[in-house]
């Protein structure tokens, strides 16, 4: 999961993920690291500030195809959505 350092994830977050993500999904996240990074970068570009927390909770979601991933967020008014997500990461589940 070291590839997450490329998107500035902290060592603590990476260790937390290594401890809690099932092996099969860790392997998949690593093998699909380019896709995962593209999805993370999309959220970074939106100025979402709690991406690491979102990733810890919904890491499997970051394996979505990048265009589908973007579509999940693009359905909404982005400024409003980003504010809401920054206040409460859990709403990502219901987008």
């Amino acid at each position, binding site marked *: 999961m070291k590839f997450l350092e490329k998107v500035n994830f902290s060592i*603590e*977050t990476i*260790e*937390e993920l290594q*401890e*809690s*993500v*099932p*092996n*099969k*999904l860790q392997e*998949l996240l690593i093998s699909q690291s380019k896709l995962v990074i593209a999805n993370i970068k999309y959220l970074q570009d939106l100025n979402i500030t709690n991406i690491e927390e979102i990733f810890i*909770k*919904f*890491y*499997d*979601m970051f*394996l*979505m195809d990048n265009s*589908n991933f973007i579509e*999940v967020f693009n359905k909404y008014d982005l400024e409003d959505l980003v504010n809401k997500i920054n206040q409460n990461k859990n709403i990502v*589940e*219901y*987008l």
Partner: protein
Amino acid sequence: MENFANKIQILNYSDKEKMSLNKFMTSLSDDIVSYEELEKIYNYLKANGINITKPSQNKIFACSYDFIFEVVEEYKSMSLVNALIEDPTRITCKNSIKRIKYFQLKGLPLTKPNGKFVKDIFSKTLFEKTYGNIDLDSELKPKEFDPLASNEYKQEDKTITNLFSENKNLDEYEAVINAPQVPADDDAIKSFDKLYSYAEKVLNKLYGTDNSKVSVPDNVCTNLIKLTAQKMDDEKKILLYALTYGKHLGEEEEQFIKNKIDEIFDNDSEFGQIELESI
């Protein structure tokens, strides 16, 4: 061909939850879990009251049935399956069990006043923020203590008077704890054995459960051997100091330990009386 439809049928999500299913489909792919394995896991969890109600919980199925079985049985043995009912995704992290055991060992509350489990248990980051980077494996290793071996401690023949002159702000028990250990003779070892078993009883009365026994921590052992080797006269006081010194306990908690010590000594003397009478 992927077997999503049948898997989704087993999971039986509500219509509202199905709306978010597309985001969490990867964990249901055949590369991750077969239909048979998913059904087996789902039914086992359900039988234990653990219901998968949200697609974001699909990640559980990336764990093997054996892994899940082992984790759930461990929680059951600690009577803490509620923690998994509260959030089934906690199953994916085996290390949380070590943190729970650490909490139990230290007598820390596992739940908040609202009945929910404290998050520190289920997150390495949160745990380490509060308690530091603790080697849980060595902390939780059953402690064995050989009082004879403790003679290997630095052996300086210090009298209590000497200790006092070096530690003027401490009472005599504290002074002994803060000094190097003196050699333990046979009487001291006997006294240590007795008080060690009492310490074990006190700790288990306070923090133990039917399924999880608390062992005496190293520092308590060290305090005990120092105090018994120095032949301090009040056994209750030895036990109290051994258990509480340097622990920064509140008045209430210290009083609670004091009461347990009294209780154990009272029971012991009653037992001795009965034995004498029967003779």
